[in-house]
């Protein structure tokens, strides 16, 4: 008790002590996730988050391994921004609104890999490292579970959907689609849309009645 009183008095006399305590905590990075930071190595982003796995993506890619055409001498590397006509003509690069070209994300020298903005190689299986360079807040949400989807189980091994399982990296915005069938009324009942009811709402009726009542009261 005495000790506490003494501490309190000390703090009252020297409030700067408290400030020192706080500021030291602010400076301390802690073990939380640091968002919105450009990492020197994109893999740093996963170092501090709960462990997870993703499904292999290279199995599902049509043209993989890319080196079959690109690095085995068939096609010379060409960094020039141009319209693709012979191959990959199906790719509509809407992402980034014209700021990007293939080699922004694809490694020019080894096409089996993606490449970070600081020119580190990233496996095609880990696109979340690449996307997180710009979308760092999303990336944090993805690692912690607020973006993307955990597959199969809520406990045990954490298996996440990869960015590219839902988003087309070349045109990431999901287009609208037709929903599943609407619910039907129980047998013997029917659904009447609100518009067909004449749009008359109970509370509006009530308001009308109230105003007309107060008007009739007036002399």
């Amino acid at each position, binding site marked *: 008790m005495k000790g506490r009183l003494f501490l309190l008095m000390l703090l009252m006399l020297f409030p700067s002590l408290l400030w020192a305590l706080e500021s030291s905590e602010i400076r301390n990075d802690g073990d939380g996730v640091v968002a919105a930071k450009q990492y020197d190595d994109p893999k740093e982003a996963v170092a501090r988050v709960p462990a997870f796995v993703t499904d292999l993506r290279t199995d599902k890619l049509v043209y993989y391994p890319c080196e079959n055409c690109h690095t085995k001498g068939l096609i010379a590397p060409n960094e020039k921004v141009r319209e693709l006509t012979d191959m990959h003509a199906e790719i509509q690069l809407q992402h980034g609104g014209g700021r990007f070209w293939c080699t922004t994300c694809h490694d020019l020298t080894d096409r089996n890999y993606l490449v970070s903005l600081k020119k580190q190689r990233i496996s095609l299986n880990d696109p979340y490292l690449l996307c997180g360079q710009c979308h760092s807040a999303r990336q944090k949400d993805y690692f912690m579970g607020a973006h993307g989807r955990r597959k199969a189980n809520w406990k045990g091994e954490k298996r996440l959907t990869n960015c590219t399982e839902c988003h087309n990296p070349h045109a990431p915005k999901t287009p*609208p*689609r037709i*929903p599943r069938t*609407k619910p039907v009324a129980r047998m013997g009942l029917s659904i009447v849309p609100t518009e067909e009811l004449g749009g008359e709402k109970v509370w509006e009726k009530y308001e009308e009645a109230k105003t007309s009542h107060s008007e009739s009261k007036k002399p």
Partner: protein
Amino acid sequence: MKFFRQSPDQKRRAALKTLGLGAAVGAGALASSANPLPSIEVPSASFEDNWHEFFQQHYQRMSPEEITEALARLERKYKAKYDVDVHVGNAPPLEGVVFGYALNVSKCQGYRECVKGCTTENNQTKDPDLEYIRVLEMEKGSMNLEHGDPYYGEEEPVPKPGKFYLPIQCHHCENPPCVKACPVKATWKEPDGIVVVDYNWCIGCRMCANACPYWARKFNWHEPKLPVEAINPQTHYLGNRPRFRGVMEKCTFCIQRTREGKMPACQEACPTGARVFGNLLDPHSEIRFVLENKNVFRLKEELNTEPKFWYYSD
């Protein structure tokens, strides 16, 4: 909570059971017919099973042996009715687990995939489908649930401009009004937070549906129409085992899946990743991250129901 001590009422029931069964067997032998009292609901289930089912205790009051018997009886019954080997489990709640759900309203696009996933998992009556999840189409900027439209058409693509979508299912309240409303205690909250129904104990008075502020409870007005090919044979006594006419049913967070560590069917079906499910007691779970770091809200909080179903946006 289970009561193993036999109450006078239970003794009376047991006595009645044996007495009645003896009489029935005697009558059967006399008449030498295969099925002396054919049941209307399930023509081919044995008379003995129907008899025992009639005198079956409340789930929480049954001894482990009685539960095993009841499960085997149900499996025989479903085999007779649907000619499918249905497994009826009774996995107990996991230690240190309370389930919670969060839904990202800014991600939900109103595809109704969760509804489809739910109806394929949970053995509801088909045609017309009984659906646990109601996706409301709401005017942007409004939060009046009464103005939400669950019947938005399947012709137009979604999301429609100026609308947002709000799926509602059982919120598994921590303070559930439906449980209080039940006059026979056929519904209760399990230790892992799931509000369940003992379909065999439900008398079908629909008081719980009256009490629920989230329209989560659905009633079987007719004998469920469940095509054999639509049956999910992995079931739970308190979950998705096929129901019968005159009982209440609801979302159970897919108790048959989640108690084994799997995700609920709606979470698996959602293509947008709007649904987050997990253990509220685990500080490293995804649901805890959402609750601690996102703008979350619950529906009709003023009713003090304490739902374990949150909505958030990012």
